[in-house]
Each structure stands twice: as structure tokens, then as C-alpha cells.
């Protein structure tokens, strides 16, 4: 089976949480302050900070201190590793084999 290395696991783990994906979606549109990121969510600043820490550890965001604010910027580079994993044919053959396997499962179930 396709090997998932540790770094890739960290990135996938970071994006496994819907709140963190939503935060990344927001940041893909441009840098933002922590309070601006938290605003649309029903989350405490503390919870948002924890999510940001996970994203930071995965290298998906960068933090810059400007005066009293922390400006958070999206970093796409780790996703390039993910893009190798999700090569067009990885997706294609997975989908093909799901269907192929499903066809025989259904056939056996009926017999």
C-alpha cells in the first residue's frame, strides 16, 4: 500500500479537523489577525489559538508579530507533498478499483 510518511501524516492530521480547514480557507484569501480568524466561528480565542498551533506545526501557516497583533499567513508548500499523494492516477485507479470491487461484491451477494 502507498506509504504515508510522518510529515505527510502531520499535514493530513492538521487538515483533518473541519475548523482548521475552514481557517485555512479563510487564510487562503489573504493574511488575517487572530481575532479576525476567530470572528466567524463559534469558538473561543483559546480554541482558535490551539488550532493555529496545530497548523503552524504542520507548516501550513506563518505567524508574524506586528505591534500587538499576530498576523497569520497561509503557507501552501506542505500541500505540495499531499498533491503528489493525490496524483491524478492515484485518484483514478482508486475510483476504478472501488467500482470494480463493488461490481463483484454485488454479484457474490446476489448469488
Amino acid at each position, binding site marked *: *500500500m*502507498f506509504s504515508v510518511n510522518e510529515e505527510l501524516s502531520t499535514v*493530513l492530521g492538521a*487538515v*483533518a479537523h473541519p475548523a482548521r*480547514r475552514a481557517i*485555512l*480557507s479563510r487564510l*487562503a484569501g489573504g493574511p488575517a489577525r487572530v481575532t479576525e480568524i476567530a470572528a466567524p466561528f463559534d469558538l473561543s480565542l483559546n480554541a482558535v489559538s490551539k488550532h493555529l498551533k496545530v497548523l503552524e506545526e504542520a507548516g501550513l501557516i506563518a505567524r508574524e508579530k506586528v505591534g500587538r497583533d499576530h498576523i497569520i499567513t497561509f503557507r*501552501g508548500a506542505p*500541500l*505540495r507533498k*499531499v*498533491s*503528489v*499523494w*493525490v*496524483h*491524478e*492516477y*492515484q*485518484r483514478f*485507479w*482508486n475510483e*476504478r*478499483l*472501488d*467500482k*470494480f*470491487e*463493488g*461490481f*463483484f*461484491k454485488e*454479484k*457474490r451477494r446476489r448469488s
Partner: protein
Amino acid sequence: MIPSYKTMTITLNRTIPASPAEVYAAWLDPATPGTPWDRSECEKVILDPRIDGLFYFKRVSPDRVEFPHFGRFVVLDAAKKIEYTWMSPFTHGVESVVTVELERKGDDTLLQLRHSNLPDDELGHMHTAGWTSRLDALVERFQVRRNR
């Protein structure tokens, strides 16, 4: 032609609830759902499964972008192994190789599919504009895989 870029191999394993002979015949039949040349999903399927026989099919995206695929059968070892070359827009016109190997396991067949000599580049194209929805699908797939 030797590609001037890095190449990669994709390997997938599945257990198919059928005998190797059944799986072998089904893989070479465009009427079987899930084959690369599944007639219900492709336009203009041509398939000549014998050594040096050729295949051609065209997949068309919902926005009518055409992806023609073609290749040549290299190994046809009944109920054991099928190998064919594979060219498509995703291989930059270079021959990649698909190998399907079958092995009996009780009432089932272990199917290993190996796609080698693939360009290891941005063809998975996770571009910034589209990456979020792809990521959702990706994580879903990852979770499904881990739960298997």
C-alpha cells in the same frame, strides 16, 4: 524515449470476491464497471486484448474537456497477469506502464495494480484556487483508508 523528469509508481491492492480467471476476463471486458475502458463512462472504446493489440478510449469531463488514452498490450498471462502501456495527457505523451497481477486467496483474488513511469509533477494539480474542496475529498479518503 526516456523522460527527462522524475517518475513515480502508484501501487494499489484489492481483494476481489471472485476467482482469478473471472477477474482476468472481467478486466478485459469494457462491459465490466470499473475497468479503465468501462464503456458506460468512456467515448469511443477500442480494445484488442492480445499481445501487441492496441486500446483507445476517451474520457470526457463534464465541461467537455477530452482525455484520450491509448496503449498496447504487452503481457496477457491468463488468470495471472495483464500488462499494457498507457499514454494520456497526464503522461506528457510518454509511455507509462500498467501491470495488473492476480493471485488466488481462498475464494477471492488479490489484485495488485501498479502504474509505473508516471511523471512525478504537479499533475495532481492542487492549485491554490481549487485546493480546499480537493482537500476535503482527500481527507475523507484518508480517513476511509485508515478505518479499513
